[in-house]
Structure formats: C-alpha cells, structure tokens
C-alpha cells in the first residue's frame, strides 16, 4: 500500500474500484477498416493501410470502455493464423504471446467469406473475441444480406454490424467487448488429421494466447515460424511431432497445409451460405453460374480452356503478330518513318560526317550500314521499330485479350484449373498468370512474378519464363516456321518444350531451398466484359509497357550497335560457331542468329526464318532441314528471351540470381538442342 493511499481513504476507495486495464487486440484481413475502427475506439489517428514488408509495427492506444480502462492494440492485416508473410507472422505471434486479452475481429461484410476464414481460425485458437461486420452499408447497397443473429448463434460470439468511418455500431461494439468469449464453432477435419492432432496436442506446453489445438494445426501444416516455440520441448516430444506430421502428410498427395486450408474453407463455405443471402443486384444469371462451375470442372473445364486459348491465339497470334506487325513494321516504319527520319536528319544536321554517323551514307539501304539512329543496329530503325512496330502491336492485342479474360472473371478460374499441375513444379495456380503474360512479353511477365508469395516461387517462375515460355514476338516467327514442319517434327518441338518446362520446374522445386505457398483465391462471378473497361485496362498496360520495357529495348540496341562498331559481333560469331555447327549440326549462319538471340530471341528466329524461307516457299525442305529447323527452334526457345528480359531478371531478383539463371539456361538450351538433334537423327 502506498503512503498516499494509507492517508487518503477516498483515494483508497477509488483505487479499489478501478481494476487493471484489460487488453483488446484488433485483428482482421488487410483493408477492412481495422485502423479506422482503432482510431474511433482510441481517439488516436493512425494510417489506414499497410503493405507486407514495409512495416510490421503494431499501433497501441488507450480507451475507456464501459467505465473500464483498456489498452488497445492494432495489428497488421492478416488472412490467417498460419502465416504466409512477415506481417501475418507478427499478428499471429501477438495472439500467441499475449494473455488475458479480448480480440476484436474486423471483417469486410462485402467479403465475408474471407473474413470468416480468419474467424474460424480464431475459434480454433480458443481466443475470446467478437466480430465486427464492417462496411455493412456498402454490403447492403450491393444486395448482400447477412443474418447477424444466425451468424452469432453459429459462432457463439457477439456479432455487430458497423460502419467504422461513420462510427456506426461503435457503441454496440464497446458494450459487447467486455463479454468477448471463445467461440463454440469447431471444424472437424479428416480422421487422419484429427488423429495427428490428438497425438500432438498433449505434447505442447500449456500457456500462451492460443489453444494447443490451433498450435498443433499450425505445426501439422508445416509452419516453420513455430520452431522457436517447440524448441523448448524435450527432443523426444519434438521427434513425435515431426513423426506425426510425416505420417499424416503421407496420407495426402497435396501439402498438408493445403489440405487443412481446403477443409477449413469447406466449413467456412457452409457457414457463409447459411447466413448470407444476395439480392437481385449481385446475383449472377443461372447460365453464368453454370458456366462458372463448368470452367473449373476437371473435365468440362478443358474444352472451355481450349476454346479460350484458341480464341486468344487467333486474336493475338494472327491479328496481332501477323496483320498488325506487318502493317506497323513495313507500312509505317520501314516505308515511311525510317525514310522520313533520314530526310529530317539530313535537313537539320549540316555536317556530312554527322549525317553519316547518325543515318549512314545517302543511297545505301539502312540494313547495310552502321548509322547510330538509322542503320543495321540503329536506335530508331532497330530499337524503336522493334519496340513500337513489332512488340507493341502484339502486346497491345495480347493486353486486349488479357483484359477481356480479367474482366470476365475467367482468369482466377484458369488459375484453379492448372493449380494441380503447377503444384508439382513447386508453384501454385497463381503462377499461370505470369506464364500467360509471358506469352505476350517475358520481360513484363518477369515483373508480374511478384504476385508469387515466396522467394522460391518467384525464382522458379522467373526461371521458367526465361527458359521455356516464348513471347508472342518469337511465337509469331516460330509459328511461321512451324507451319513448314511435318506433324512429326512439330510434335518433337512441342514435346521437347513441354517436357523441359515440367521437368525443370519439378527439379527446381526439389533443388531450390525455401517453401511454396498455398493458394486461396475467391472466384468472382463470370460476367460479360464491358468494352470501355477493356479499353481502359489495355491503355493502362500499354502506358506501363512503354514506360518500363521500351527503355530496355533501346539499351539493348545501343549495346548491339557498340559491339558491331568494335567488331565484337564477328568475334562472338567465331566463338559460337563450334557449338552451333559442331554440337547442334546447324548451318554456320545460325551462329550469328544465336548471338543475336541473347539480345532478342525473336530476332534470332527471324534470322533463321530468312535462311530457310526459299526452301519453305518452294516446298523443298529436306529431312535434314526439318531436323535443323526443329533443333534450332527448340534451342532458341529455351535460350534467354532477350537482353531486356535479362536486365529485368537482374532488376527483380538481383545480379547473383540473374547470372545464375543465365549461366544455367545457355548451356542447358544447347544441351537440350543437342539431345533433340541426336534423338531425331536416330528416331525421326
């Protein structure tokens, strides 16, 4: 007892009446208005958003709720308690370490399914909590109705609809917070998982903010971030946990983390469907719903996928890569812009030496001189014309096709369809997005590899993009050459590429350290894309391409021009000839095509096309030529896509990884080419 308390009875009475502050922890998915609610509760202003990796700070504040002092903590947004990022781990660790708290889960009513996935995990964790259905007004305006009473009854906790920005529902939340209690909702998993849980739970130490069952589920799911927590266990107990995990994992072809998430999601879906009804505005048509279900069906999804790919090929491969490129390259650039540029330079620059340096000698075709702006490797005649006349029409048509797919809601369904195949390659269905984008432009797709959760996945996607995904520019030249090949040679080409893609992906998943991630994706309804939206999306992407990829085209061309000026290209050609002629059995002219292939893979393919064009047109391709074309196409496709892509890999993944990927790809491409050459000569 303090001296002051001993001498002041009134003060002593106050101190006896004022209990210790309780702690409230706010949790929720990212961007659900959690921080706004925190501000409303504590009166302290906080920033609304955060981004994984930028800050994992926890904001603290004080509030008086129902006459009692509360310490309030705001945590980084999380989608689950088995963490996939540093932010999610921070939130999970707070719940794990703190004791005696009440948890306030904030969820977006418009996106209740995602919120309930976290709710169910809080229920499993035995955390006392209540649920705030935030943005209730926006959900109602979209025709989404949540049966709050039924939800509260199913969960066994208080559920309060709120509009945090208008402080609506705040008083009800404050009234309910002291009565926060553990949820009675329980997910029953498969017997194999339940048996594993029954074995692991008794081994875990008591105490901490989360129930042993939740921690055991995390351990079974392979959550490495819990290693510190089980480090204090006796060696025998740790071995029994690992053994239980191995045994349960062996029962499923997929990762245990994925299986647990899937079964938990099924329980969430049942709960969600029981309490949510949608008004006419948000309900899709019956046909749309059926088509949406077919598009992810293991059997019916395949013809739908084939139809989508065929339509995309016709639009991008035929209209974009042939018609639009032909028009832009010849009609616009070579017939008009190049001669106009030459004339403008000769008119504006009075010195003949400068004119010759910039646009070459008068009367000589630009492909036969080394002018800086207009020339064989001129910044304008090659760099800009490749960027604007060859690649832009193809990526623009591709962006239109991609935006249509995006706007229609088909893309996430495509990701679900290929999820199983990609899981064998250490990835998940989300990887299909950079892969599909790679068919437009590998350089840009390398940037999109950022969507993958872990470093391991990003490296595998970057490697596969650089190795086996031909960009549309190259695809167009490949298709032009492939049309001349016999069906047998074509099968060799396709088989070699697909086999390499799957084999390298599978091996990379085994060899590279780190872990893959699971894939929980909501499927928005299928809808008919609106032309205006597609135009806006396409324009935004074209602007992005011009800002980020075009400068790299110019840098690549500048390098090529410099090498040509100092005779470096001839030296490189001599160095490459033994491999190209000796190992791959290709004509010596192909050596330069391969060197240029590093700068632009489609350029190399175009060079080869020109070499064989007279025989293709005359229909006099011999068996030897069929083999040469197949070997050349396989090797070129597996080669580094272009120097811009290499720079992008370096930019995204760092010099070390960039050089390691290039160091692997170049000899590997030649090795596969040589193998196809030997096998075809034997079997074809």
């Amino acid at each position, binding site marked *: 007892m303090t001296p002051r308390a001993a001498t002041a009875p009134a003060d002593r009475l106050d101190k006896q009446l004022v209990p210790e502050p309780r702690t409230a922890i706010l949790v929720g998915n990212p961007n659900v208005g959690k921080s706004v609610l925190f501000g409303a509760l504590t009166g302290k202003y906080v920033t609304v958003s955060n981004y994984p990796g930028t800050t994992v700070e926890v904001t603290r504040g004080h509030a008086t709720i129902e006459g009692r002092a509360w310490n309030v903590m705001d945590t980084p947004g999380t989608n689950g308690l088995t963490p996939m990022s540093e932010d999610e781990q921070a939130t999970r660790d707070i719940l794990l370490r703190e004791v005696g708290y009440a948890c306030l889960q904030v969820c977006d009513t418009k*996106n209740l399914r995602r919120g309930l996935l976290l709710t169910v995990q809080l229920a499993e964790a035995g955390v006392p909590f209540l649920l705030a259905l935030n943005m209730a007004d926006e959900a109602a305006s979209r025709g989404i109705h949540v049966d709050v009473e039924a939800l509260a009854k199913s969960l066994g906790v208080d559920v309060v609809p709120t509009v945090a920005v208008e402080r609506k529902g705040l008083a009800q939340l404050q009234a309910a917070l002291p009565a926060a209690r553990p949820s009675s909702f329980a997910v029953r998993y498969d017997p194999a998982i339940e048996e594993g849980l029954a074995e692991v739970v008794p081994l875990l130490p008591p105490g901490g903010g989360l129930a042993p069952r939740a921690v055991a589920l995390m351990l079974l799911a392979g959550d490495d971030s819990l290693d510190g927590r089980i480090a204090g266990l006796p060696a025998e107990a740790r071995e029994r946990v690992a053994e239980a995990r191995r045994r349960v994992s062996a029962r499923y072809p997929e990762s245990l983390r994925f299986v647990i998430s899937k079964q938990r999601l099924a329980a969430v879906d049942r709960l969600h469907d029981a309490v949510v009804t949608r008004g006419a505005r948000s309900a899709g048509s019956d046909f749309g719903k059926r088509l949406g279900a077919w598009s992810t069906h293991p059997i019916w999804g395949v013809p739908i996928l084939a139809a989508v790919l065929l339509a995309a090929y016709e639009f991008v491969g035929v209209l974009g890569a042939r018609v639009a490129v032909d028009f832009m390259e010849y009609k616009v650039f070579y017939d008009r812009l190049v001669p106009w540029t030459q004339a403008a330079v000769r008119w504006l620059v009075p010195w003949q030496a400068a004119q010759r340096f910039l646009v070459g000698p008068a009367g000589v075709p630009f492909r036969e001189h080394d002018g800086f702006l207009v020339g064989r490797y001129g910044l304008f005649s090659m760099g800009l014309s490749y960027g604007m006349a060859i690649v832009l029409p193809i990526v623009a048509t591709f962006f239109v096709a991609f935006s249509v797919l995006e706007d229609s809601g088909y893309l996430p369904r495509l990701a679900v369809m290929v999820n199983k195949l990609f899981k064998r390659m250490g990835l998940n269905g989300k990887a299909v997005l950079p892969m599909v984008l790679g068919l437009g432009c590998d350089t840009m797709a390398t940037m999109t590899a950022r969507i993958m959760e872990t470093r391991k996945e990003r490296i595998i996607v970057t490697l596969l993009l650089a190795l086996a995904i031909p960009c549309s520019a190259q695809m167009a030249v490949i298709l032009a050459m492939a049309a001349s090949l016999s069906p047998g040679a074509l099968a060799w080409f396709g088989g070699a590429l697909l086999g390499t893609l799957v084999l390298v992906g599978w091996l990379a998943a085994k060899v590279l350290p780190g872990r893959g991630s699971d894939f929980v994706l909501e499927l928005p309804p299928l809808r008919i894309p609106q032309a205006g939206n597609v135009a806006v999306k396409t324009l935004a992407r074209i602007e992005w391409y011009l800002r980020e990829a075009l400068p790299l085209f110019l840098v690549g061309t500048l390098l090529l021009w410099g090498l040509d000026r100092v005779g470096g290209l001839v030296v490189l050609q001599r160095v490459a000839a033994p491999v190209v002629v000796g190992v791959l059995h290709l004509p010596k002219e192909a050596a330069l095509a391969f060197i240029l292939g590093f700068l632009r893979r489609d350029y190399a393919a175009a060079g080869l096309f020109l070499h064989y064009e007279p025989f293709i047109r005359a229909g006099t391709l011999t068996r030897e030529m069929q083999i040469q074309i197949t070997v050349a196409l396989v090797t070129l496709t597996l080669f580094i896509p272009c120097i811009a892509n290499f720079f992008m890999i370096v930019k995204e993944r760092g010099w070390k990884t960039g050089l390691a990927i290039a160091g692997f790809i170049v000899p590997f491409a030649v090795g596969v080419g040589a193998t196809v050459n030997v096998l075809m000569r034997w079997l074809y």
Partner: protein
Amino acid sequence: MPALVARMERCPLCGTEFDAAGQGCRPSCPLAQGCKVVCCPSCSYSFPQETGLAGRLKGFLERRRAGR
C-alpha cells in the same frame, strides 16, 4: 514512393476492393519511384493503376455512363 493515386481499387483477379494508398510496389525496386503498379492485399495480384491517359478515358466513360 510509388506514384499511386489514393482511391478505392477493385482487384481484377479476386474482386477484393481496397484502398490503393500504401499498396504500391516495394520500395526496394529501382523503378518503384513513379511506378503505378498496385498490389491487391488479398491475393497479391498486381496491376497498373488506371491513371494518366487511361485515367482520363476512364473518367470520360464514367461521365458518359452517369449522363445516360
């Protein structure tokens, strides 16, 4: 800092609506300054924000739709 406009965006992949503020590129990226790529907090899908010419077209289309 990324050149993002703070406004509500809808993820084209999973349909989540979110505030674009703070959802830009990682600052470690050398091109993050001036980058318009926004990243969905729910599924991490990234897409360029419709500003600039695309933003003007979007504004025009929205005004036209509102006028009907």
